[in-house]
């Protein structure tokens, strides 16, 4: 029986747990550590001491070389583009999704059920089916090789965030809205002054998710941005690591790792928001 286990046995169990779980956790993050370590190794060391996680002669040279980028553009340009796009996308999608979620969660109006089902259905739609007509449409507007095809769609909300915020709004007592209404407040006032302050935490969680997805997005920037000046980090990295092109692996690993740093920092700082967000909504991470 578990209750009767001796202290020694319990200690052994604890040790075994930490040993096994810890060792496999190390294996799990080994590839990431390897990338970080390799980015500080001099060129001749990368492939000769492949498995090692500790550079013998650590160097920053890879970062200096890598930062030079390609085609006369430094990685500064690509970082700037990624920050602008991820920042604005996040701002737009959070504002629009919050407004929309209030309408769906709190107001009953004819047709709501239908529109809600439509929104549910859109979450099942793969990007591939919309990308061709959208590409033609944005091309017609002259938006190819601008950030607009990435930014403008975010003004119309995203189902994932709308659901997430709706769930939270449903948890807020309805009496709060009703009391405000009895006091003569209009809908807009109730929304901005009663609900919005309470919605800050889920909006923050949503913002972290949005930034993180935008930062890693590859498919859309690949299609809409063909001018290297406009490349985001993900598209730039692809060109930078082109198998037919350069083979300065140190520089490639350095820039790859650098592109992950914001995401890793975000994860370390806001780990709880991310893990709880995934656990409660059950969607992809």
């Amino acid at each position: 029986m578990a209750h009767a286990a001796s202290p020694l046995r319990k200690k052994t169990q604890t040790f075994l747990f930490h040993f096994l779980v810890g060792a496999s956790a190390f294996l799990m993050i080994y590839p990431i550590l390897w990338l970080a370590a390799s980015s500080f190794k001099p060129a001749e060391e990368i492939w000769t001491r492949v498995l090692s996680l500790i550079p013998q002669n650590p160097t920053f040279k890879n970062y200096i070389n890598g930062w030079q980028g390609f085609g006369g553009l430094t990685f500064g340009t690509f970082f700037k583009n990624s920050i602008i796009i991820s920042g604005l996308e996040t701002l737009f999608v959070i504002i629009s999704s919050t407004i929309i979620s209030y309408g769906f969660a709190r107001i009953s109006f004819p047709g709501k059920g239908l529109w809600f089902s439509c929104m549910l259905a859109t979450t099942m739609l793969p990007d591939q089916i919309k990308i061709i007509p959208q590409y033609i449409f944005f091309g017609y507007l002259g938006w190819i090789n601008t950030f607009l095809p990435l930014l403008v769609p975010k003004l119309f909300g995203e189902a994932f965030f709308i659901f997430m915020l709706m769930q939270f709004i449903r948890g807020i007592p309805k009496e709060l809205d009703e009391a405000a209404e009895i006091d003569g407040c209009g809908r807009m006032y109730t929304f901005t002054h009663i609900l919005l302050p309470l919605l800050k935490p889920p909006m923050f969680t949503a913002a972290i998710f949005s930034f993180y997805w935008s930062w890693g997005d590859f498919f859309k920037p690949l299609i809409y941005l063909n001018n290297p000046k406009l490349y985001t980090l993900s598209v730039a990295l692809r060109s930078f690591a082109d198998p037919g092109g350069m083979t300065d692996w140190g520089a490639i690993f350095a820039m790859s790792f650098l592109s992950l740093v914001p995401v890793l920092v975000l994860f370390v700082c806001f780990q709880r928001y991310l893990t709880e967000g995934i656990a409660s909504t059950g969607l992809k991470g």
Partner: protein
Amino acid sequence: MKSSFPRNRKIRDARDGYAFISLWLIGFFALTLIPLLFSFYLSFTDYDLLTPPVWTGLNNFITMFTKDPRYWKSVFATLYYAVAAVPLRLIVALAIALVLNTNRKGVAVYRALYYAPSIVGSSVAVSVMWRQYFGTEGIFNALLNMLGIPSNISWTGDPRFAIWTLILLAAWQFGSPMLVFLSGLKQIPSELYESASIDGASGIKKFFKITLPLLSPVILFNLIMQMINGFIVFTPALIITNGQPLDTTNFYALYLYKRGFENFQMGYASGMAWILLVVISVFSIFIFKTSSRWVFYETERGR
């Protein structure tokens, strides 16, 4: 006065409701519904973006199904990938979730560490390095050599193994199903296990009689979502193998991209996209419809 008040309220609610969701409605029509219909039309045409679309009837679909061996190859590669990667990922996720479902110290740290690969896994950066792991001089070969198995092949360049490097990358990112399983496990009442223990049930029996049935809705949900994600895998296939060798990793989304945005066959690519949509819908509906047979909903037990 009294009778007109609810009517006024209804009108006001309708006005406010539509005002609040208007942004979504505009987006739905302009960026989803109309593009969907336009794409349906395009799938019956030849369109290269420069000259107007030419109506060709069912030609694209006939080519796809009967004259394009690369199409079928991409279908099978995608199915192979999804059927191997998704269950693998879910099994690992469930196993780790079971191990981490304790109150021991340090569990939060482990959870974060196991989740970390999922945070970066779908990025271009990780795909770039994955290509190197399984290259001739990569860490995988170094590891094999260390274990006494001499190997110097390029795993991403060998038609037999290339797809498995991508499956492994997918399995590595089991973080989000793991978190979902963990929160599902936490919701199982501990009295169930206690009374089962009193009845003398073994750990394995408890897992199959209590844990698995109660977790099945969560497993179902993950199965659907991950399968659909598996069908549209794109970034790693483009970066790591670019569909090579011998088209063994030319996954559906990648082939669609190549047809549409490299060969500018927008009609053909639209047709491919519609087939993908139909398959995804059929899968979702099939799993939802058959779910009642094997999914245990707790609410049903109460009745």
